[in-house]
């Protein structure tokens, strides 16, 4: 073992606020964001090799549980984060869209790997050229396949978005227009 200290986030950082003896006051936004970002329930939509990297990410060596995301949800109804990992065929497109629609708000999407982001090497008639053609994506993780460290970095980026999201974002005009662009609701 090296004597370098390994830093793992065991306790979530305290948000900005006013602290005094026996009390801590912060905004509701920040408290909710703190809770949400440290307890994301991912829904793995793994279709190929990036899914194998995800399995490594979830396992003991990389251990996504350190970031509060160890509880996978295989039901879209109870998940916050849709992780699309792998090649999505055009025939799979409507299925992916349906899974996204079934997720309850608020929801986030991460596209892991070159195929999910752009079709990757599969520039062919049968493969969807990036999942952002059917659903909105928050974070793209490049790589073919990306290493678990990169997937964790993507999750941390998602956490940043989740933690800083305004509670009213999902009712905003911009958000509704984004959904309209994808013909959702």
């Amino acid at each position, binding site marked *: 073992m090296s004597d370098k200290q390994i830093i793992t986030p065991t306790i979530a950082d305290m948000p900005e606020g006013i602290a005094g003896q026996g009390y801590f006051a912060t905004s509701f936004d920040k408290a909710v964001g703190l809770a949400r970002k440290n307890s994301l329930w991912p829904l793995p939509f793994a279709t190929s090799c990036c899914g194998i990297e995800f399995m490594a990410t979830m396992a003991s060596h990389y251990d996504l549980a350190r970031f509060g995301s160890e509880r996978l949800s295989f039901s879209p109804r109870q998940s916050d984060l849709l992780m699309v990992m792998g090649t999505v065929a055009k*025939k799979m497109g409507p299925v992916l869209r349906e899974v996204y629609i079934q997720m309850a708000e608020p929801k986030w999407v991460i596209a892991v790997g070159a195929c999910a982001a752009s*079709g990757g090497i599969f520039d*062919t*008639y*049968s*493969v969807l*050229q990036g999942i952002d053609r059917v659903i909105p994506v928050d974070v793209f993780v490049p790589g073919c396949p990306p290493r678990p460290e990169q997937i964790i970095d993507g999750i941390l980026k998602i956490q940043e978005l989740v933690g800083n999201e305004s509670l009213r974002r999902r009712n905003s005009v911009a958000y509704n227009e984004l959904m309209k662009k994808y013909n959702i609701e």
Partner: protein
Amino acid sequence: MYKPGSDRDQLVISLLTGQFGNNIEQNEISTDMPVIKVKKSAIYDVLLFLHDNAELQYNFLTTLCGMHYPEDSQLGVVYHLHSFVNNHRIRIKTAVNLDNPVLPTATTIWPAANWMERETYDFFGIIFKGHPNLKRILNVDEMVDFPMRKEFPLEDQTREDKDDSMFGR
């Protein structure tokens, strides 16, 4: 290990030419198995004969797939047959014209032909007459083309970010 030109190879070819005469257009013994080209009109009878004949007994359809020859405006089908009893394989080929690509189904001889014929229809547009459920099996149902025909472009046509100079389109 297959040795070309065995007694059984000769037996299959002689039985077929004896039974079907001119309908056997061509036969050769390739490096892996005998290859027999059959006229479209006789394909069903030939396959049935190969399956039912007591000496041959090709009881197993290993695979079946389509071909496209744009220079001859022809589509084709290859059948790979295997006789478990005699441990022998043969390859049967047939061709149809592109303007009327209809062939009799082999599902009544080998039920395994069902999904293979659907795949061949899906990718080449060959219609197997008598097939119980001839619809697309792999591609999206909305597709109107037959993507394995040579004129069909392989690359996704909806992309705008890849140009000819860099990606050879």
